[in-house]
């Protein structure tokens, strides 16, 4: 197997479906050993099986833990440390999307969205940074969102969590650059995944009309950006927020 990520060890959170799964698959295709994180044992195992069927010889393994559970995150990273003595790439993808007008956003919803999208991202980055800084190299890729940069009516909580991810990315990039650990974010636009399956057709059409390239993106489009940021192609790139949005914001 040969590719842009040959021999690298990557951990992808929320790898069971959507952008996470596409990224894990793309990484495996490019020669990376991939740890597939998810909360569900069955889904992570199914994702691993699918990748192995698609990419013969792929070296993938489920790593089941909940990114909101500090103890579980620590245990998972300890396991990675013990088993592999390091980590080359972390893709912080695990996320939840909940929409609500500001007057109808409950405290519980706020905590849930922040807990997964921001707190979970922070916890994983915190442990990954330690493994990577010790090795003197690594790439952390945080999946943000176009709404984290530009906002969206009805998504104040989700947008706040994703804006937080950008602030976290920029700060970590500054803090970890001396250790040769790069930290970047990807801000996907309107991507065809299960997460947006519930968007009504009329609204979907209106959004697509606002995209300069006239179409929705795919999870593979985002995965390709992750390959770039995880590989040596981006060895001098850190602290960037890469929009993958078909020109939605220009």
């Amino acid at each position, binding site marked *: 197997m040969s590719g842009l990520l040959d021999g690298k060890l990557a951990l992808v959170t929320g790898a069971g479906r959507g952008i996470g799964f596409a990224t894990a698959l793309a990484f495996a295709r490019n020669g990376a050993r991939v740890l597939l994180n998810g909360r569900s044992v069955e889904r992570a195992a199914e994702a691993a099986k699918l990748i192995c069927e698609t990419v013969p010889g792929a070296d993938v393994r489920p790593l089941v833990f909940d990114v909101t559970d*500090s103890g579980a995150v*620590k245990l998972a*990273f*300890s396991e990675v*440390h*013990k088993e592999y003595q390091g980590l080359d790439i972390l893709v912080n993808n695990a996320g939840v999307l909940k929409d609500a007008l500001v007057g109808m956003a409950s405290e519980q919803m706020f905590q849930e969205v922040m807990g997964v999208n921001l707190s979970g991202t922070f916890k994983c980055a*915190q*442990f990954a940074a*330690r493994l990577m*800084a*010790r090795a003197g190299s690594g790439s952390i890729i945080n999946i943000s969102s176009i709404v984290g940069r530009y906002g969206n009516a009805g998504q104040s909580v989700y947008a706040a969590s994703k804006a937080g991810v950008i602030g976290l990315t920029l700060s970590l990039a500054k803090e970890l650059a001396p250790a040769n650990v790069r930290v970047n974010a990807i801000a996907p636009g309107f991507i065809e995944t299960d997460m947006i399956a519930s968007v009504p057709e009329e609204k979907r059409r209106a959004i697509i009309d606002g995209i300069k390239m006239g179409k929705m993106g795919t999870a593979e489009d985002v995965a390709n950006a992750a390959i770039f940021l995880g590989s040596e192609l981006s060895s001098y790139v850190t602290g960037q927020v890469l929009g993958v949005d078909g020109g939605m914001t220009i």
Partner: protein
Amino acid sequence: MSNADKLKQAFVEALQVNSSVITDSLAYEGIREWDSVAHMQLVAALEEAFDIMLDTDDIIDMSSVAKAKEILARYGVAFNR
């Protein structure tokens, strides 16, 4: 090498100081060399030396050499008195 020697060496490497400086009473930010950046290097050195992964709370609590020994003991690293 004894655990005490390993500990001392981790401190020496991380803080870039002479080993004579490393006494139980040496405290975080007690000398210029033991700042927050060096503290994270110290954590890495200790984790490497003893093949452990410290909890974030323990990293924050590691306020002196004596405290480091106390914390490491909870990870099964014994120091002879």
